[in-house]
């Protein structure tokens, strides 16, 4: 980046408040450059993206690898990943008595900015309706109602850097009545006020940080949340450090008095094009859930901003490579030419294709590292482009060069987890994961694979000879639904001679 002052020493900045400096803007509704600084953490040059975590980790990435290969920006963590419905008790992390329980629990690097929200992004719609005091969360074992008091207490205990105020948004509802929208505004106002009070009255030792608050901006017309916005401006604006925006197009209507605040997008983008659109409207910090969903599908990103200068082709280029395709099986080439990520500099397509087809976890990890690196450099270059005043032109060439959507998913994702489903899918009877092996060979009763060496038997008698090495079971084949083959019926060529 060419502009800006030297980055201040992190230790000199008090931990208390976010410092957000707009470095360059051409007015409202335009892309802007900024520097987002939390005391004690690495400053973030914006626009940038936050890593989207699941149970405290970026999926497929152990915390050491996160620090090593992807820890350059902050992370978004959802409280719903840490509370459980059963057993009915205090979430364990609340009992962790260290200065920054959440950061320490999830082993996040000390300098990584940590943003806490109530719900994952995207959230799974919950069937239970919200009340005046509580919203419904999806824990790993079911839905649970969480009040604004609980949320504020969690924030106080967990000490993230930034807490996104709890918003009353009926996710998954196609149409929302005017009356309901009024309620959304009323409740969100009350809940935010509570959070602000809790934070402002928190007893802390001198020098001990509290947390910063980002106020939610609801995904409804400005008129319908004007009551909330007025109160926000009248008596809470000095206590908040940023905005969490659920509908990027409402940036148009944002009151001028809020323009100095950093804007975190919880508007779920479907493609890089949509990221560009959000940035063009003036978004600063974005969340990009499609990174992990592409990774799960085995799709390795292959796009740059601006696109490479090549002779104009009539066909638009794909945004990602489906690594399940056998054509990569012998390619000793990186996922993307010139990519400097760990996966591209240390490994090659042939290995990654092998890992996916062998269903080895490392395959998804390598694609995840790569996809994060591609999005990282996408943001780095779009900042350069904004700085140079070429952003709009580059967006146009990007749209002309690449297909508008990520490629179709063809391969199998890793074993599906609860959060991969919408709630209505949970009700369906069929299995969420295909049964891997029905235990039958040739339809002749249960086959038990027995090991002689290379396999330590289990202590339990009944498990002694059973091999549950998935790879081996795959080799024996007989996937569920495959045609049963009677071994004795198969002819071996030599038998005829013999």
């Amino acid at each position, binding site marked *: 980046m060419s502009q800006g002052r030297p980055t201040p020493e992190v230790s000199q900045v008090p931990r208390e408040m976010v410092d957000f400096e707009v470095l360059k803007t051409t007015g409202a509704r335009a892309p802007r450059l900024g520097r987002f600084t939390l005391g004690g953490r690495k400053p973030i040059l914006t626009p940038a993206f936050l890593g989207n975590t699941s*149970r*405290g*980790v970026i999926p*497929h990435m*152990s*915390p*050491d*690898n996160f620090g090593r290969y992807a820890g350059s920006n902050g992370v978004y963590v959802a409280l719903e990943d*840490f509370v459980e419905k059963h*057993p009915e008790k205090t979430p*364990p*992390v609340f*009992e*962790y*008595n260290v200065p920054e329980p959440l950061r*320490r*629990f*999830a*082993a996040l690097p*000390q300098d990584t900015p940590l943003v806490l929200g109530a719900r994952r992004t995207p959230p799974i719609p919950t069937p239970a309706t919200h009340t005046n005091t509580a919203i419904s969360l999806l824990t790993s074992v079911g839905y649970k109602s969480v009040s604004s008091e609980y949320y504020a207490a969690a924030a106080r205990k967990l000490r993230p850097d930034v807490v996104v105020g709890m918003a009353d948004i009926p996710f998954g509802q196609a149409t929302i009545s005017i009356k309901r929208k009024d309620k959304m505004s009323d409740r969100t106002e009350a809940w935010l006020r509570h959070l602000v009070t809790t934070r402002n009255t928190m007893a802390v030792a001198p020098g001990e940080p509290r947390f910063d608050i980002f106020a939610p901006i609801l995904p409804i017309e400005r008129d319908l949340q004007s009551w909330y916005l007025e109160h926000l401006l009248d008596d809470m604006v000095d206590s908040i450090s940023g905005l969490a925006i659920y509908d990027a197009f409402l940036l148009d209507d944002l009151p001028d008095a809020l323009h100095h605040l950093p804007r975190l997008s919880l508007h779920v983008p479907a493609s890089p094009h949509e990221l560009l659109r959000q940035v063009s409207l003036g978004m600063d910090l974005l969340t990009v859930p499609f990174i992990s969903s592409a990774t799960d599908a085995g799709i390795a990103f292959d796009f740059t901003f601006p696109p490479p200068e090549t002779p104009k082709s009539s066909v638009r280029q794909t945004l990602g490579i489906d690594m399940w395709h056998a054509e990569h*099986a*012998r390619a*000793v080439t990186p996922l993307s030419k010139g990519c400097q990520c760990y996966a591209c500099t*240390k490994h090659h397509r*042939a*290995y990654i294709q*092998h*890992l996916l*087809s*062998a269903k*080895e*976890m*490392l*395959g998804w*990890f390598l694609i995840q590292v790569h996809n994060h690196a591609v999005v990282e450099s996408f943001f780095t270059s779009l900042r350069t482009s904004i700085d140079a005043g070429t952003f709009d032109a580059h967006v146009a060439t990007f749209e002309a060069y690449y297909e508008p959507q990520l490629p179709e998913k063809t391969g199998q994702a*890793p074993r599906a*987890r609860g959060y991969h489903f919408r709630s209505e899918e949970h009700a369906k009877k069929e299995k969420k994961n295909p049964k891997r092996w029905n235990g039958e*060979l040739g339809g002749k009763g249960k086959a038990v*694979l*027995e*090991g*002689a*060496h*290379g*396999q*330590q*038997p289990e202590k339990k008698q009944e498990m*002694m000879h059973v*091999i549950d090495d998935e*790879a081996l079971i795959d*080799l*024996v*084949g*007989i996937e569920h639904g495959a045609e049963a*083959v009677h071994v004795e019926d*198969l*002819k*071996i*060529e*030599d038998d005829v001679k013999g």
Partner: protein
Amino acid sequence: MPMPSALSFELLGKCSVTKARAATLHLPHGPVPLPIFMPVATQASLKGLTPEQLEKQGCRLCLNNTYHLGLKPGQATLDAIGGAHRFQSWPHNLLTDGDSFQMVSLLKLAQVTEEGVRFLSPHDGSPMLLTPEHSISLQNSIGSDIMMQLDDVIVTTSPDLARMKEAMERSVRWLDRCIQAHKYPERQNLFCIIQGGLDLDLRRECTAEMVARDTPGIAIGGLSGGEAKDEYCKVVDTCTGLLPEKKPRYVMGVGYPEDLVVSVALGADMFDCVWPTRTARFGNAITSRGVLNLRNAVYSTDFGPIEEGCQCTCCRPPEDGGLGITRAYVYHTTAKETAGAHLLTMHNVHYQLNLMRLVREAILEDRYPAFLRSFFAKLYDDKSKYPEWAVGALKGVGVDLLSD
């Protein structure tokens, strides 16, 4: 004519009481300390860990599986890429096993003849033939630092002595074919595998035949298939008693901590097992006080490390450059995010490698009997709980666990 060798075995110390030895084995991709535990990266990947993560736990020699790699990615790909080291970006040593285990696994689908093993392709049911020549050719393509002969394995508990003898004798004949077929003896070490089930006479006979072939290293195979532990110990003890001192001895498929320390006392140097990494995926952590299942709710609020004092990436506190992972966090992620499995896999691999490091130090300082006593005292809170087979086997090599 002596067989060329691509290793050198540097014997550094012997226990003055038991048969335990400490050595350094110099292999084509660097030296490794003996005794050693080798983690199993069946399909050229250790259960979610990067080569760097595996390296950081101290691993310099791990296993790949010949048969799995022969199917995926296949020999042609391995040849095109230049072997399994390049394929998986592993700069250290690899050992490939010779397929025998898969044959037993697939026995219901397979038929063993003098020529090789006939079986039906698991993919399309077409007849396939696996011969010693094919196995060696695959392992030459893989480029493993240690390759294993194809042997004829039947479960040790088989009552059919005639079949056992046939398998043993066939394994010797197949070793000759493997030696014949081996293209690169100057850069890859072929190990023979002693067979003979639990019959000590067959084992003696087989050992004599195998030793005569002078391979760079020697494996004891066919064990760890559910036989009684005292029978296992007798076989290991008998074989090591007949083996030359200056060659590495590998007992295949062994991996419980107590099996490792006893087998070392019986004179074995190398071990492999999928158990530590497989059990990690089920939430089990190996510690010096036994295996903990961290999916148990009692650990949900246990904010201690997986094992106090452990120096693995997970357990070391952040102040020492580790992650400071708590048991509660493993509980939080295990079976819900694959990263939970990665964490425990790192810990378990580190535990096994570190155990062998401590074993080696104890042998070098000639205090292995004391090490054994303190190892069992930690693992079991009472002497009455010590496994009889371990007490018996160690008594046989001069260590009485029950005395003070």
